[in-house]
């Protein structure tokens, strides 16, 4: 597991990026998966160069390799989406980020260090699908804690404030 809970610590929320952000990436992948074979098929029929250079089985083999690469790229996108997690507990915030192979960042912040929570929703799709960024400012010179493209950011902000108020009491 990427993080260990403290004794008596309770998880209030586990969140990933909004599904729409990964959907857009997969849309490009799907487009490439459809378009390239269509172009190859069209070249096979209309052009004389391709059939001269390659036998049919070679073209199929090249397409198999192409789909293997497509599969790997899409799996990378999926892993990037699925393994970037934000956890809100009743004591702290935890951000787990996959920054590349063998490069993983786990950041935690105690709730009592929070000074301000800002929510920003930019763009047409962000407004339509209700996702945005949550910026959490801390006391001192520490860097801002940012949750990018989080679904229902206002609700998450309210939850953080509720947890913070309970902690202060």
């Amino acid at each position, binding site marked *: *597991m990427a993080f260990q809970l403290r004794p008596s610590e309770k998880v209030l929320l586990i969140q990933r990026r909004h599904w729409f952000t990964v959907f857009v990436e997969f849309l490009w992948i799907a487009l490439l998966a459809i378009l390239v074979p269509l172009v190859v098929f069209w070249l096979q029929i209309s052009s004389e160069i391709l059939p*001269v250079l390659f036998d049919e089985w070679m073209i199929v*083999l*090249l397409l198999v390799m192409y789909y293997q690469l497509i*599969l790997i790229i899409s799996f990378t996108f999926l*892993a990037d989406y*699925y393994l970037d997690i934000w956890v809100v507990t009743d004591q702290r915030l935890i951000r787990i980020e996959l920054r590349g192979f063998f490069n993983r960042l786990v950041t935690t912040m105690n709730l009592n260090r929070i000074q301000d929570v800002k929510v920003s929703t930019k763009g047409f799709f962000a407004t339509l699908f209700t996702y945005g960024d949550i910026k959490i400012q801390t006391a001192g010179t520490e860097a801002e804690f940012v949750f990018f493209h989080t679904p229902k950011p206002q609700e998450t902000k309210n939850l953080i404030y509720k947890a913070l108020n309970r902690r202060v009491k």
Partner: protein
Amino acid sequence: MVNLGISLPIILSILFLLVFMGGGIFLWVLSYHFKKFGLPGDKRGRWFVSTYVLLYLLLSIFGLLIIYTFIF
């Protein structure tokens, strides 16, 4: 077919094996990430990994069958 001096089927076979092995290592590393850094008891993550590995293996077997049929 155009004579390139070196056999095109052999070049394609080597290329396929490189993609097959490279992709396999890539998938293995990513699967390891899911196992190591995923949430405990996360069935959906395991399902994603299994599906991708299965699809990759099916594609690879298909490619190997093509090589076996047309080269050997």
